[in-house]
């Protein structure tokens, strides 16, 4: 039986292998002025494996780089996306695009995809992928909200959680927080109780001036690892470099 595994490509973009299927999350394959991964892009679009599905949480460029991802060789790949992404995905040539709202589900080759709630600067959904006993939760760049506590109640045990940790704040918007921070990610880990958790969305930078004028964020994922040790001691938290495949 194939193993559940994840390969972080960069930022929140992962390849998730589950139930013998492969899914790509939140594609980001290019850079723009003021938007930098802060870490390598480990897999280029041409080198992507055959994908059974693509999951996109919201329309922000660093999660939904459709302009670059349009170069993927199969535009009929099934896409499961926040409803705000549907139009743009179709405009970029993708033909099999399904909007999922929180708690709605779909199925691809024996893998169940369920959207979960989220809260961010714009409308967002997160996703749970389940096959048999294994389930992967992909949290995009949501804030920690009480509704996320319903995930294990509604969808059962989570084996692997992919969580943002940089606590991104937007300075010109009264320093509004739009992404969960390390402590909040640790609290969510304690709620989900996965065997394995991998942080993402921490190396991102808006550049020298952007990090001063526009955003502030915590670029150290070890804070999440340390916070989880206290509140979620049963979870193995691994900080994973882009390109490293980790099996459950």
């Amino acid at each position, binding site marked *: 039986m194939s193993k559940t595994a994840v390969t972080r490509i960069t930022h929140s973009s992962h390849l998730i292998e589950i139930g013998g299927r492969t899914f790509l999350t939140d594609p980001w394959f*290019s850079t723009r*002025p*003021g938007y930098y991964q802060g870490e390598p892009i480990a897999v280029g679009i041409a080198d992507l494996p055959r994908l059974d599905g693509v999951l996109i949480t919201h329309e922000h460029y660093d999660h939904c780089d459709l302009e670059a991802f349009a170069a993927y060789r199969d535009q009929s790949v099934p896409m499961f996306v926040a409803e705000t992404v549907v139009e743009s995905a179709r405009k970029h040539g993708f033909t099999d695009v399904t909007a999922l709202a929180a708690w709605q589900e779909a199925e691809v080759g024996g893998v169940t995809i369920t959207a979960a709630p989220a809260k961010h600067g714009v409308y967002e959904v997160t996703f749970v992928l389940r096959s048999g006993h294994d389930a992967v939760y992909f949290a995009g760049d949501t804030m920690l909200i009480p509704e996320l506590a319903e995930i294990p109640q509604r969808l059962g045990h989570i084996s692997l959680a992919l969580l943002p940790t940089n606590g991104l704040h937007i300075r010109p918007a009264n320093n509004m927080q739009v992404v969960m921070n390390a402590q909040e990610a640790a609290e969510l880990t304690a709620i989900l109780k996965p065997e394995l958790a991998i942080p993402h969305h921490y190396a991102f930078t*808006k*550049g*020298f001036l*952007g990090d001063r*004028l526009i955003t*502030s964020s915590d670029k150290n994922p070890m804070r999440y690892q340390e916070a989880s040790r206290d509140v979620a001691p049963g979870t193995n938290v691994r900080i994973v470099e882009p390109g490293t495949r980790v099996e459950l």
Partner: protein
Amino acid sequence: MNTAIRTVDLAGIGSVEVSVADYGSGQPFLLLHGGAGPQSVTGFAERFAAAHDVRVLVPTHPGFGGTPRPEALRSIPGLAALYNALLDQLDLQDVTVIGNSIGGWITAEIALLKSPRVSGLVLIDAVGIEVPGHPVADFFSLTMDQVFQRSFHNPESFRIDPATLPPAAQAIAAGNRAAISVYAGATMTDPALAGRLGTLEVPTLVLWGDSDGIVDVDYGRAYAAAIPMARFQLLAETGHSPQLETPQQVIHAIWDSADTDFTAFAR
């Protein structure tokens, strides 16, 4: 510091030789001088590189400082394309471009080329946009004495009598004046620039001397208003060339901008 002559291939122009002075090492900055020539920014570059782990590149715009200018290179967007290609050639990432006066106009045009290499802009008493009721001072009709008067909060510290300069320096000054005219024209504005700046998404800091008599403070506020999310900051007791007159204020404004209360300079 070292200075190198870089040869940059520019579409439609050909090979352009540009003299680039290179200060320090670390976080990269491209520092663009205005009509006062490269020596109006080199002292600042040295000071900045001594204060922080930064690499400051200071090109001399072809035609300034006694350098040759290809006949076909005769516009601010042309200079922007030149420096964009230079950043490619040097393979620099996360570059903050700083420009004073005409250098600020070049900076704005570089931003409009939207290279991912350019992550931020610092416009210091920049020219280039048209602001009704707030024209750029007519540099070519001013005496040098009037230029000094309008350029500094405290002109006495900077005033020189051009007639006392040695002939070689007078020739360079005349060349600078001719280069300003070629690149920026008599008005030093592009009526379409302000509208085009509305498409920018790059983090921008607009610094303005509160005593600038070349382009006034309201012009500076209009510049910041034309660029989405730009932050505006006044510099006290400072004229048109803050990097010369109050360099410490400029370094502080850039390096410590995360701690600035921009509401104090609200539009």
